[in-house]
């Protein structure tokens, strides 16, 4: 359990500096508006803010009352209002309404808008159009990197995914470049860079430009982080769409980890209250099970509970002095551990209740079948039944996407019928959802005129349905030129297993998906790091449609010494999942690397689907 790192694995840099930096800057900005003021905070910024500055710090700097920026206007009596928001047009409207209402009432106050992580011209434009540009002062709070854990930095920009991969909006790329620049001034230089994807390339180039403009900062410093890898989410949707089965991923899928903490409801805490729990390396119990396959977790926890009991039991037969020692030194730790243990056991039970039912196993079975590409017909019917049963709109959508990507698009007949079923079940507005999914390449139709499909439809007219299904299967296994399939073969993503895959002692990254599939994103990273370039991966790069978008920028400095550095920064543009993090942590332990993750946001299948879904307001 909880494999130790190799003794020669490098130490992680201390990222708490980022927090301090952000906090100091915020305080500076608040001080710019001296005197008592009310602070309006955008809901999405609350949790990140909570991680770096608590209410008492805000109060110290004369923040009087806190409000949430939401649809209904808040009544504040303060003479100074400060808004802490993401640069969104919606927020500008909110502020404009507030200011204009004041104007109507003949009231004058001071307004200050602090944009985080940066200001957009479009926002200022809206302020101007609304006629309040002169009334407010604008500032930027360049808070773009939140250390969620010792090895995980998040930009907390979940909208990055939709904005870039669906709407084609590149505005966040600048933010990414700025964040990289900040990292390299604090922890740089980063001698070796690799990347794949359009966004990765653009961010990289922009970042380099920033570095060139103000060089000198990092020169002469010895690099710590030897390699940096940038990866676009659309290189690998498959991994993100799979159900997660490592503990941390499962907790995220079940309870939703938000900004590094989770709300455990009464069913977990076995009391009548919900409890907010920080999940990171400081939680000793969690740290040992977070990367484990769920099937091991329960055994581990019960073992741990027994150990704990034994430690408690030791106090029997202690004399007074020993007891005093025990109470003053160990008891607190034990109690803490006890509390955490019971929480995680509660969480496990709750997960078990939800997941170990027959249907979850069937679901996983279907997913594995899709990944391996057999029994496509059966999987399609499974998805159909999934809709018929009205299990969950998001889940159904996810399975459809998984089918589409692994099969290089749905065959027209299925495409139509599944969509109809879905629309009839969940409402016509999802016509837009499907249009979104198609644009993002998540759910597509196989090009008609595919010779085999034509043959197939002829055949199916001649024979009964069931036989046709079998023939379809035969055909598709023969000739579906699915890119995923080809990539999977090239990179050996589906491990050949003789006998049972031992999930207790994983032998490769596939363990994060029960030994059925090695996450594509992680495999790419592994391969490139092994080769120190994209050399020999031309075919894979071509299949990923990234011929011009894979890049390597080898060291400008002393090559030999930087090569040997085994601290690696992986940047996921568009989000990464806990499964991917676990897989790479595993890889790190195997090879003596240490990975640091930088992501625009931690994501999972449900979040991806929700980002693509059209919902009635």
């Amino acid at each position, binding site marked *: 359990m909880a494999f130790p790192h190799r003794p020669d694995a490098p130490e992680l840099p201390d990222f708490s500096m980022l927090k301090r930096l952000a906090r100091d800057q915020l305080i500076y900005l608040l001080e710019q508006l001296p005197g008592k003021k009310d602070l309006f905070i955008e809901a999405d910024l609350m949790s990140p803010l909570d991680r770096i500055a608590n209410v008492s710090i805000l109060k110290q700097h004369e923040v009087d009352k806190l409000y949430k920026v939401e649809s209904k206007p808040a009544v504040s009596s303060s003479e100074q209002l400060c808004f802490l928001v993401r640069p969104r047009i919606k927020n500008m409207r909110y502020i404009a309404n507030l200011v204009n209402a004041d104007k109507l009432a003949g009231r004058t106050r001071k307004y200050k808008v602090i944009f985080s992580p940066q200001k*957009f*011209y*479009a926002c200022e*434009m809206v302020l101007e159009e609304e006629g309040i540009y002169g009334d407010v002062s604008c500032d930027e709070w360049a808070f773009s990197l939140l250390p969620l854990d010792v090895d995980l930095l998040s930009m907390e920009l979940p909208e990055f995914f939709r904005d870039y991969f669906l709407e084609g909006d590149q505005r966040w790329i600048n933010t990414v470049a700025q964040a990289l620049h900040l990292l390299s001034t604090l922890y740089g230089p980063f001698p070796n860079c690799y990347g794949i994807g359009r966004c990765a390339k653009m961010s990289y180039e922009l970042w380099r430009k920033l570095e060139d403009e103000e060089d000198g900062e990092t020169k002469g410093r010895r690099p710590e982080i030897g390699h940096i890898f940038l990866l676009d989410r659309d290189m690998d949707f498959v991994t993100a769409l799979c159900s997660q*089965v490592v503990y941390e991923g499962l907790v995220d899928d079940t309870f939703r980890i938000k900004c590094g903490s989770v709300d455990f409801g009464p069913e977990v805490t076995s009391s009548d209250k919900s409890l907010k729990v920080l999940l990171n390396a400081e939680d000793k119990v969690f740290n040992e099970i977070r990367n484990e396959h769920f099937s091991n977790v329960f055994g581990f926890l019960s073992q741990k509970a027994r150990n704990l009991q034994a430690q408690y039991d030791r106090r029997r037969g202690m004399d007074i002095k020993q007891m005093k020692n025990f109470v003053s030194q160990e008891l607190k730790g034990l109690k803490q551990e006890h509390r955490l243990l019971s929480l995680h056991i509660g969480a496990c039970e709750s997960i078990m209740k939800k997941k170990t039912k027959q249907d979850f196993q069937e679901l996983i079975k279907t997913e594995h079948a899709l990944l391996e590409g057999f029994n496509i017909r059966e999987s399609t019917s499974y998805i159909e039944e999934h809709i018929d049963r009205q299990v969950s709109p998001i889940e159904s959508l996810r399975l459809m996407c998984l089918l589409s990507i692994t099969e290089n698009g749905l065959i027209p007949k299925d495409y139509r019928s599944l*969509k109809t079923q879905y629309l009839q079940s969940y409402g*016509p507005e999802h016509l837009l959802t499907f249009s979104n999914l198609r644009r993002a390449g998540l759910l597509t139709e196989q090009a008609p005129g595919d010779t085999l499909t034509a043959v197939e439809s002829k055949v199916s007219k001649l024979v009964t349905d069931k036989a046709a299904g079998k023939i379809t299967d035969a055909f598709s296994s023969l000739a579906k030129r699915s890119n995923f399939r080809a990539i999977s073969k090239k990179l050996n993503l589906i491990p050949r297993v003789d006998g049972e895959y031992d999930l207790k002692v994983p032998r490769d990254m596939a363990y994060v998906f029960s030994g059925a599939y090695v996450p594509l994103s992680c495999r790419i990273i592994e391969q490139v790091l092994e080769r120190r370039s994209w050399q020999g991966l031309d075919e894979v790069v071509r299949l990923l449609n990234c011929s011009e978008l894979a890049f390597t920028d080898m060291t400008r400095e002393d090559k030999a010494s930087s090569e040997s550095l085994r601290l690696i920064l992986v940047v996921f543009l568009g989000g990464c999942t806990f499964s991917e993090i676990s897989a790479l942590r595993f890889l790190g332990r195997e090879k003596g690397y240490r990975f640091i993750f930088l992501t625009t946001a931690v994501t999972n299948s449900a979040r991806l689907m929700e980002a693509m879904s059209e919902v009635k307001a």
Partner: protein
Amino acid sequence: MNTGQTCRRVCSGLAWMAGLEGGDTGHGWTGSGGNSLLLPSGSSQAASFGKCFLDRFPPDSFVRMCQDLRVLNAVRDYHIGIPLTYSQYKQLTIQVLLDRLVLRRLYPLAIQICEYLRLPEVQGVSRILAHWACYKVQQKDVSDEDVARAINQKLGDTPGVSYSDIAARAYGCGRTELAIKLLEYEPRSGEQVPLLLKMKRSKLALSKAIESGDTDLVFTVLLHLKNELNRGDFFMTLRNQPMALSLYRQFCKYQELETLKDLYNQDDNHQELGSFHIRASYAAEERIEGRVAALQTAADAFYKAKNEFAAKATEDQMRLLRLQRRLEDELGGRFLDLSLHDTVTTLILGGHNKRAEQLARDFRIPDKRLWWLKLTALADLEDWEELEKFSKSKKSPIGYLPFVEICMKQHNKYEAKKYTSRVGPEQKVKALLLVGDVAQAADVAIEHRNEAELSLVLSHCTGATDGATADKIQRARAQAQKKMEGLEEEPLETLPTEQW
């Protein structure tokens, strides 16, 4: 004698000598350049001589004095003709002296002085080069190309030189083409764009802004363009710039919905136009007539986009909306905005089975889903009688396992058992296990001689109550194993571990 005095004496001697000899030995500066800043040999000898008598003499002031003298010597040359005294020079400061040289267009000398005094490039060489370039662009007799090339050759990538400033000067002299050429050398797109806009080269500015990857810059240009061009031209420009287009669309989505529609119209993007109207049908319109009208427009657009699927789905939705409205009028309750599925469910829950059937037929709900729907709804109602009737209405397209399942979900074992007998052989074991009849499940599994099923049953055997059943299964297994010789015996205690 202290060092300060020594220094002063030596230096004043030097100054005198320099002044004296400078007049005689002054080399032509502007002509041959280079070595003209060399101190006349006499002075240097004197200086070195003086230094020999001092120990611990700090060299700084000596060196500085020598440098100043050389500069003074150089500008005193008759070609230049600025005879300054030392104190005048100090009063004036080097910056002002350089400015004067620049004003007299003595660029080479100014640059040499800068280099010699090792002034920081931004204050020194770059500044003078920039001045030179600004002068150069005013030479109207030289062609744009030559000027641009000459400037680039001299300036190269000198830090601190702003090509955009020079370009601005060129533009000020009315040489727009030259300005554009010069801007090409400007590495920072942020600097290029404003000038390009000023020169009314908005389209070029747009592509430069896009190149920069800075969306704010793109946006600035876009709004500029919007005001400058008429709508049609503006849209045409956008059409060729997908990145700008998507940026503008994002803006319109929140701020100018009508413009968004016009944009799609202009592009003949019927697909997006359809989506736009769909969204309008539930976001913008309140009245049912308005909503149906919006959907009709959407459907028309989808037909134009050759997206028959979407068009048909939209038409269905129109029908559904009208129907829901009628249902609300006739039956009361809320139907509007429910999905088709939920509409039918609501009807069944309200006891309007006939209507539900009719609706399902009209909208061609596939049998399988309809069965699931009815089954779930009737179980929710706990209308077991009707459920049984329904189950017998014809052969179930979804089998009878779902009946067992749903009944159990409502904790009605009694009803569930009714259906177990009708479950097909393949799912029989599952059904029996669902109702908790482990013994019978074991019998069926043994009958089927299906290893997987046996394991499944075994995993459901708990405690003493099922002890006999477990034994039975083990026996059956053992028998089966005897029959299949050559197969290795499986250890009995390994229960199948659920793996997922």
